[in-house]
């Protein structure tokens, strides 16, 4: 549900895995509720752009795991599957009596991955955490922020996609292992631990010097200049970084001020670092009258790392991303046709694409119940009557 788990299965689904997303009438994906459209929108839950982007290339079925018949059918599905991924709270699968011991008993080759915030053990295992909490609990929030300012949140629910990517990789490793051992395994991913591995150098450093790192905004501990500079227009910015003397000389000629490269305040790495406030002013004087695109072109032509800060609509229209075919049209039976970002993994011999729109709620019930589980129409109707499955979600759940 939400982003972390579904991002993992999105990556695998993009690669061609048959992914079946299981929701139920009373426990459906909160992303379906983030429609951005008026509440009276018909079948709004099928028109959420966030849900539809995250769940393309998957099938969807409605099955209530908390009902005995639902659980039984889930076990029959697990018996013929390779992987089960869940990102419920830590205790939920055990409460459902669907822990790894139960699942592996019906399918020894099954790979099961859980991804609670804190893992399944320890004094905080039952604490509830979402994506922005994960960055607070892993040190990333502490490291992010303007110089002298408070710790800062990142722009996204950072813990989610990070956990999702790691989970996809973990599954692949377990598949590699399974080809050798013949059996599946249980993988436990604690989201805060995953994110700690993205700041690992700070853990090592602290163990050596016991010093708390300070926030440094857009600056670097060695490179200067290294910052984000205002360009012409409303709230337009460019990032510029110089890794060495050669790039700095190139920057000076692009700024049409080759003399600066010999100015004693900026002539060498150490002087530039010490005098970077003044250096930033000089750069800003040049960038402020130029568009970020023109400035980036000029700097890149000279060989300087520079890039406009692209806003989300600009990412969507970016010529480079478009030239690489990053965005692909997807046609959804209820939501219509639109462009969505494609797979971030570009494979030369088996290129991945968006083949299927996201499932409407319960769209593939029939495929799952009839074709995969061999139920009759009468049995399916009975499940529906008992509330084990359904065709539309209970809308009050996410109000």
């Amino acid at each position, binding site marked *: 549900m939400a982003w972390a788990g579904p991002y993992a299965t999105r990556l695998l689904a993009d690669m061609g895995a048959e992914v079946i997303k299981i929701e139920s009438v009373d426990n459906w994906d*909160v992303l379906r509720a983030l429609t951005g459209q008026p509440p009276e929108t018909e079948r709004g839950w099928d028109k959420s752009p966030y849900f539809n982007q995250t769940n393309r290339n998957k099938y969807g079925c409605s099955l209530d795991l908390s009902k005995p018949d639902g659980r039984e059918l889930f076990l029959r599905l697990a018996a013929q599957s390779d992987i089960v991924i869940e990102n419920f709270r830590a205790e939920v699968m055990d409460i459902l009596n669907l822990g790894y011991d139960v699942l592996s008993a019906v399918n020894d080759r099954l790979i099961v991955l859980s991804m609670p915030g804190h893992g399944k053990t320890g004094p905080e295992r039952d604490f509830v955490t979402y994506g922005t909490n994960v960055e607070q609990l892993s040190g990333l929030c502490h490291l992010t922020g303007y110089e002298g300012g408070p710790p800062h949140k990142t722009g996204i629910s950072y813990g989610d996609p990070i956990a999702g990517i790691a989970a996809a990789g973990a599954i692949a490793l377990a*598949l*590699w292992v399974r080809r050798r051992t013949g059996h599946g395994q249980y993988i436990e991913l604690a989201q805060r631990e995953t994110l700690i591995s993205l700041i690992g150098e700070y853990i090592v450093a602290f163990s050596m010097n016991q010093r708390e790192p300070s926030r440094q*905004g857009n600056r670097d501990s060695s490179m200067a200049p290294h910052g*984000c500079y205002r360009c012409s227009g409303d709230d337009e910015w460019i990032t510029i970084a110089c890794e060495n003397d050669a790039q700095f000389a190139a920057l000076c000629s692009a700024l049409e001020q080759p003399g600066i490269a010999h100015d004693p305040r900026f002539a060498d790495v150490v002087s530039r670092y010490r005098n970077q406030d003044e250096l930033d002013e000089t750069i800003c004087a040049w960038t402020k009258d130029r568009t970020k695109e023109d400035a980036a072109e000029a700097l890149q032509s000279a060989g300087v790392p520079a890039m406009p800060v692209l806003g989300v609509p600009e990412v969507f229209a970016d010529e480079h991303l478009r030239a690489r075919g990053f965005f692909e049209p997807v046609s959804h039976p209820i939501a219509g046709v639109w462009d969505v*970002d494609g797979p971030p993994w570009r494979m030369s011999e088996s290129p991945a694409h968006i083949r299927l729109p996201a499932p409407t709620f319960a769209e593939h019930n029939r495929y799952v119940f009839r074709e995969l589980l061999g139920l009759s129409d009468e049995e399916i109707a009975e499940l529906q009557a008992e509330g084990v499955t359904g065709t539309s979600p209970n809308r009050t759940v996410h109000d």
Partner: protein
Amino acid sequence: MPDSAPLSDLRVLDLSRGIAGAFCTKLFAQFGGDVITLEPLSGHPLRRNGPFAADRPHRETGAMWLYLGAGKRSATLDIAARTGQSLFQRMVEEANLIVEDYPPGMIDELGLGFDALRRIVRRIVLVSVTPFGQDGPCAGWKATNLTSFASGGQMSLTGDPDREPLVAGGQQAEYQAGLQAFAAAAVAAFNADALEVPQHIDISAQECMASALELYLPWWAYLKRDISKRRGNVLSAMVGVFPAKEGHIGLHIMPRNWPRFAKAISRPELVEDVRFKDARSRLQNNDELEAIVYEWASREDPREAYQTAGAVRAPIAFVHTIQDLFESEQLRSRDVYQRVAHPEAGEITLPGPPFRMSEVERPARASLLGEHNEELYCDEMGLSRRDLARLRAARVV
């Protein structure tokens, strides 16, 4: 180093020089893969990143390398030399994965491009990690972690509205690309093994970040509604980082958590308050709710607030410093930290793996520069000690 770990028959040759590539291969090493980092004779560039043990710059004791080099074997090789290239081609015979981050086209110029490699090993997987990918108008552009973070859209979302956009802490653009490269490589390695499909994987850091823009990208793409303007530390009363008494408290309250939240801040009566009766009303009366949250947070000890909220299962956390991470009962109880001894850096702490697999757990230190030259070139590739001396004299290894 090859042993009985489940991934020990997965061999990775690492030609990369940046954080993304090094993180990608570090993860394979962490789970038992046999990773050989092929360093230039002057040492891997990341060995230059401080801080260093005892604050003395030393190629063996930089924190970045001690972390990202952990568990890998180290051999030196001048890949620009013809002899270096032919030695590399021999190594490829035993390899599953090759990771590189040269500017697009350079690996072909070295005669080690995908077509050349797959002629050596039919099932080879080549992973190329670059800022903009292998083709397209910006493919040759220069980048650092900062500029990559700007190119993928995440920077525009981060920071205060009245200040410049902000890069996330550490080297997140690099790490995101490295993590995606790892997962893609693991899938491709499995595929190559099971179906004999070779693969050249093209990972663009820009695409990795553009792939993680939460609801902002799909909302723009579908609704043409742009809500991506950066909003500082507080998205709403329910999601943000708030100043507390000595420290900061983070809230991420979803609609279903509202009653738990009211309980956690000892204001159960808020649940009955019509101004806040559902998600929509709470948004409409956000300013009033935000005032309540600010006021509450300012009086709280963040560590106590975290424990109180955790006990009633409200999604409230406190901003952990690095020291807090070391002191965390939760992380300590799960043995997240691994102490390893390093000949030059002494005893250091490495964070544990990003996920736990039932059969793998192997803390290992970073190798010294060229530590495995003899093992690789002589014991495994069959060169004599005198051949190795010749390669050294010619500055190939």
